[in-house]
């Protein structure tokens, strides 16, 4: 037992929980205190996540945490492996810029922004860490409940309407989640993911059918979250209605569904009789999602909707590529997930700054402020910090960077990601001597077309915003708002420069995922704290 280091595993859940609860004690007027607590919590979270990533990467870290010191299949476990550590780092890295961006003005547009933000992070981290299906449901609900509040942050008819649809869809999805989980419990008699992976081999006949049906219903829930066509009509409305920093952090929320699908499909349905359950749905559904997203990107007039459809393109790409279930391609997909999450997060925040100079954006903000009350006079004093010099130039460069990233052009990380995926699919020796199947060619075509569509609509939007605007109104942008966007773009740049180490981490992650035995052993044989070294038959783990 590596002793106290083990407790780092639960820290990503406890830190935002404590911070979020603490924030409730402070009145909304004590903004500085609230902001301080929030920022400290996010920084601590990032530090812990990066530390966990290092521990996991070092190889000799036992990433299993038994809650309440109950042995594995009976109690709830938290598991950190390479994939969950990666997701934790991604979530916490995205949270810092989103929070800083919100501090400039948006956190005053409604009550309890900081608490909700922390609880959202708690739900996200919990979903990434948990090794138990029902616990996953609980963390999903924590995350969703916080997201309902955040989506409607700032109020206004548009957001409330979008929120209404979003909540209705997600409540229905939560019910499906419960049906799926209970069907799995009814057939397998366990909810622990590792235990389920062990027992699935022994389940026969009708029970297997029930189990697969349960898993399929569960899959539908994650596909709703990931935004697979035709389960994604709620997404563009909800994401484009949310205020900029919230939409930025929502960029990771659609990846939670992808994370769970990746985790369960490789752990539970990686081998045995039910192997490859639903892979075709992922493959063709993902392709349909790319097509739908691409059409949406081309058709969008408003930048917010363009970004929302980019979320769909990104989700569709990941789903289709996961449907191929090819190790090398999956590694590329993980890289793509990191890159596209950072890009979309930056883009959502950038849009708000760009549109501020235009009438549409300004009027939305005005409506928000009006609906919430007399925020007008406070707003002036809230805007601490310096106005950005050379605003248009910086905005334009960031916009161009986002366009390059979204369309996957060199030199930024979007290109590296797509290149890695395409090499895995059609590169030399990708399929050995066998011919490359038609479905792969379709994905390749769709990937390239979606990049082209992103390029076209970003160029069009860029020309309209930066070149053709005659009014000459320069939006007033604060350094504090510009810095987060630049930070995210700088991160993608780092990802490009460090593409080698990053890719080898992803490849190692996929190798680990393809050998679920290690994960299962770690969970089932996790030693309890305070119990004599060889846990022995009296350890209570009689499986």
């Amino acid at each position: 037992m590596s002793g106290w280091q083990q407790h780092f595993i639960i820290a990503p859940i406890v830190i935002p929980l404590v911070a979020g609860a603490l924030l409730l004690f402070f009145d909304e007027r004590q903004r500085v205190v609230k902001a301080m607590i929030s920022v400290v919590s996010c920084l601590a979270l990032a530090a812990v996540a990066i530390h966990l990533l290092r521990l996991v990467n070092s190889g000799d870290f036992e990433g299993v945490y038994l809650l309440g010191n109950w042995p594995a299949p009976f109690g709830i476990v938290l598991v950190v492996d390479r994939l969950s550590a990666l997701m934790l780092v991604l979530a916490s890295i995205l949270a810092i810029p989103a929070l800083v961006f919100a501090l400039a003005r948006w956190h005053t547009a409604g009550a309890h922004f900081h608490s909700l933000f922390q609880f959202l992070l708690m739900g996200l981290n919990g979903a990434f860490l948990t090794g138990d299906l029902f616990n996953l449901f609980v963390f999903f609900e924590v995350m969703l409940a916080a997201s309902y509040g955040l989506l409607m942050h700032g109020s206004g008819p548009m957001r409330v309407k979008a929120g209404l649809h979003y909540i209705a869809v997600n409540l229905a999805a939560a019910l499906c989640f419960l049906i799926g989980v209970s069907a799995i419990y009814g057939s397998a008699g366990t909810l622990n993911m590792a235990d389920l992976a062990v027992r699935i081999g022994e389940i026969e006949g009708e029970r297997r059918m029930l189990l697969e049906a349960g898993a399929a219903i569960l899959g539908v829930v994650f596909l709703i979250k990931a935004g697979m066509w035709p389960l994604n009509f709620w997404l563009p409305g909800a994401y484009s209605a949310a205020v900029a920093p919230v939409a930025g952090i929502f960029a990771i929320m659609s990846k939670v569904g992808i994370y769970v699908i990746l985790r369960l499909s490789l752990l539970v349905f990686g081998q045995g009789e039910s192997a490859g359950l639903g892979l075709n749905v992922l493959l063709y559904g993902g392709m349909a999602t790319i097509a739908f997203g691409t059409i949406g990107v081309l058709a969008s007039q408003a930048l917010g909707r363009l970004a929302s459809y980019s979320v769909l393109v990104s989700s569709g790409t990941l789903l289709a590529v996961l449907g191929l279930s090819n190790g090398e391609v999956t590694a590329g997909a993980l890289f793509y997930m990191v890159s596209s999450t950072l890009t979309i997060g930056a883009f959502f925040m950038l849009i708000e700054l760009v549109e501020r100079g235009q009438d549409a954006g300004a009027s939305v903000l005005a409506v928000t402020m009006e609906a919430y009350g007399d925020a007008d006079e406070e707003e002036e004093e809230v805007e601490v910090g310096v106005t950005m010099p050379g605003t248009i130039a910086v905005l334009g460069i960031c916009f161009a960077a986002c366009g390059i990233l979204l369309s996957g052009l060199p030199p930024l990380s979007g290109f590296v990601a797509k290149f890695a995926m395409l090499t895995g699919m059609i590169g030399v020796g990708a399929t050995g001597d066998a011919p490359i199947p038609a479905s792969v060619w379709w994905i390749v075509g769709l990937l390239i077309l979606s990049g082209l569509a992103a390029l076209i609509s970003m160029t069009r939007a860029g020309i309209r915003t930066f070149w053709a605007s005659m009014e000459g109104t320069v939006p007033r942008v604060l350094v504090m708002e510009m810095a987060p966007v630049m930070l995210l773009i700088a991160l993608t740049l780092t990802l490009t420069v460090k593409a080698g180490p990053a890719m080898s981490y992803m490849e190692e992650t996929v190798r680990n995922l393809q050998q679920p035995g290690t994960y299962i052993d770690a969970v089932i044989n996790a030693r309890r704290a305070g119990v004599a070294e060889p846990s022995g038959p009296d350890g209570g783990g009689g499986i």
Partner: protein
Amino acid sequence: MELVLSIGIGIMTGSGVWLILRPRTYQVIIGLSLLSYAVNLFIFGVGGVKSNAAPLLGEGVDVSTLTDPVPQALVLTAIVIGFATTALFLVVLLAARGLTGTDHVDGREQPK
């Protein structure tokens, strides 16, 4: 008993699905409540339906005479979460009614 339970779940699910597809927000919320009752009963049912059996393991008690305690614990959690989210939805529903002046789910009446 299984038959009564499954018919009950079926009727509630059917009514719930029909209601959440209706255009009024109040119908949607009642539909979601009915669906969550159906789902809660379903969770309860997956542990096997037994009457007059305790979920307690004693010395020398045959395991097959027990009811499964796990679904009971799950259903409690599901009830609490479902209750909280329904209450939240109700608030949003009222806010939407106040802001748009209609109880249509799209925030405006369908043109006749």
